[in-house]
């Protein structure tokens, strides 16, 4: 059976004064029903742009879908007209954005923004919409929801605004939730509470979740599968357990070494990946990670390595993956 969401060879470009930026460059992955799929990777690697493309939310210009398909239940979302995609947005696919302040309207009360969506998408009466909004705020752990509904976004703390966004995403019982850094601004107990709610929805109602996050702990706890992005491409993908046990790309190894861990003794210095992230205007001909990679050899500088299957559902875009897995220090 086909997956709920199938992204195929997606390419997205931006025209900038300094030239064309290939923000997303041939990205393919699936999200199945009830599945939690994580998208991780370097800042600027194209995670948000990938997510925004799914719902045709890339401003064109300066953006442009350079190619590929986004199949949702077999239907190409990129081919839908504005009216048709609007029917999908919010209702069948909900999105939680990275910056809640930019996606909440500052001059409308929280209640107004929540009930409007409920009335529009579910056809609820004003009273019913209000009741549902209260229940949703309660579900994401906001105290005194009635009073909060009367407030404006600037009167809430960062974490509360983010929870309002999550409540709005849950409100229309979508089939797919795309959450871009949904819990970065939240403390860990609320983070856990919200991710448990989301995971429960996935398990119980078969809702699929595509989660973008920098937090590798969250990925380890909640994700079934992981896609690692670097400079607009997927460099590694696979089941979460396999990817953490046996990371198969030097960039993934670098990511895992960068995080301090509560289950390890304190005092080990952090090991950031040496060098700096690539300039998308000046991508090297070969593997974009090669300039920062201690395993890089001549072929790595000639052409980008394709994503190759390693078995057990894991795949890596690295010419030197055999040496990496054999334990040559990266």
């Amino acid at each position, binding site marked *: 059976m086909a997956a709920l969401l199938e992204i195929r060879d997606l390419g997205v470009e931006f025209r900038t004064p300094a030239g064309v930026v290939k923000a997303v460059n041939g990205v393919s992955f699936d999200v199945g029903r009830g599945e939690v799929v994580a998208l991780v*990777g*370097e*800042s*600027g690697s194209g995670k948000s742009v990938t997510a925004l493309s799914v719902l045709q939310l890339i401003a064109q210009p300066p953006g442009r879908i350079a190619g590929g398909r986004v199949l949702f239940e077999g239907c190409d979302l990129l081919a839908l007209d504005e009216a048709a995609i609007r029917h999908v947005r919010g209702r069948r696919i909900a999105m939680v954005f990275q*910056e809640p302040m930019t996606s909440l309207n500052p001059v409308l009360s929280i209640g107004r923004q929540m009930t409007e969506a409920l009335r529009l998408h579910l056809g609820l009466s004003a009273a019913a919409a209000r009741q549902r909004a209260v229940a949703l705020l*309660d579900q994401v*752990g*906001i*105290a*005194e929801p009635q*009073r909060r509904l009367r407030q404006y976004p600037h009167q*809430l*703390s*960062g*974490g*509360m605004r983010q*929870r309002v966004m999550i409540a709005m995403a849950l409100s229309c019982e979508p089939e797919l939730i795309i959450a871009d*850094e949904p819990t*970065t*601004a*939240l*403390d*860990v*107990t*609320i*983070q*856990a*509470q919200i991710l*448990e709610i989301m995971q429960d929805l996935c398990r119980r109602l078969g809702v699929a979740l595509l989660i973008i996050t*920098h*937090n*590798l*702990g*969250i*990925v*380890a*706890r*909640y994700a079934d599968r992981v896609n690692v992005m670097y400079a607009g491409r997927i460099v590694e993908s696979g089941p*979460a*357990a396999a990817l*953490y*046990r046996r990371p198969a790309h030097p960039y993934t190894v*670098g*990511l*895992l070494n*960068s*995080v*301090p*861990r*509560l*289950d390890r003794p*304190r*005092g080990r*210095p*952090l*090991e*950031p*990946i040496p060098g*700096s*992230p690539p300039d998308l205007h000046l991508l090297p001909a070969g593997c974009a990670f090669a300039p920062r990679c201690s395993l890089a050899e001549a072929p790595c500088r000639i052409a980008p390595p394709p994503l190759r299957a390693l078995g057990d559902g894991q795949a890596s875009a690295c010419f030197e993956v055999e040496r990496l897995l054999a334990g040559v220090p990266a």
Partner: protein
Amino acid sequence: MSGRAQAGQAPAGQVQAGRGGEALVELRQLRKYFPVRGGILFGRTVSQVKAVDGVSLSIGRSETLGLVGESGCGKSTIGRCLLKLEAPSAGQVIFDGQDIAGLDRSATKALRRRVQAVFQDPYSSLNPRMTVAEIVGEPLLVHGVEPGAAGRRRRAGQLLELCGLSARLIDRYPHEMSGGQRQRVGIARALALRPDFVVCDEAVSALDVSIQAQIVRLLEDLRAELGLTYLFIGHDLSVVRHISHRVAVMYLGHLVEVADTDSLFDDPRHPYTQALLSAVPVPDPEVERHRPRRIVEGEIPSPMNPPPGCVFHTRCPLADEVCRRQVPALEPLGAGRAVACFKAGPAAVPA
């Protein structure tokens, strides 16, 4: 070179005086209440949000104090009071021996040189119309430290290099840089006036883990080299543990536990601290599968209407009648820690 080595040698931090040394920053019974207005436009004040409700705390010279806690518990508000961006409703903020509320204009300006901030959002905290040279040089201009444009530019270049950025970025605009680069520009700007104290409010939260690791190392190195003092506010407890000498835990406007970092993480005493630590996911699916998850039940009470007694009692598994009626004071437990809980036993004897 790293701050941790020094932290290890420091005597077990006293609760009030920080790492054995004298305090640079002190909060005395700090309170900040925000009015909540009713009605449509010009409604009268109907109640108050008790954002910070009686916090006493001190930070020693060249100490890093971590501040963690529930979203909305008042961490940023404390930071803003320290920066004199908010005036306390009651209580005092003492900086280097002086109550900052009593400072006149010129003394306040001098304070603004010594106290700086790095905020979470590098996108919105830098002026998009200014180049990096202008952004980093602006404080030098405003405070009349470096009136000449050429001098400011040179100094900006040095600061960028101090923060691990190539001086070639000096003519770029914020949108022409990556998030991590922008965050470093924010740090370079904060350091321009050679401050003594920096409030880092979620300063690395928005960054990917590799850049986050770079910035954390940078902050540690700068502390060691320049003797900076930090208040490090963050949600990522593994990062807070890594960088802090001591950690303070807040809940609903109150401090519930303060301890040196190792004691706090190895042996948390307040039930809220325990819940907080158990909620931190570890980046390893194997470890996660076998870890018990203890989600704190219930919802966070409203700061407009905080519960009587211990603010945590509505969600605490240990709460009894006393907790519902009396407010526990932040009591020293020995070994440099303090806990506001009727149920917390004595600190374990360090092995």
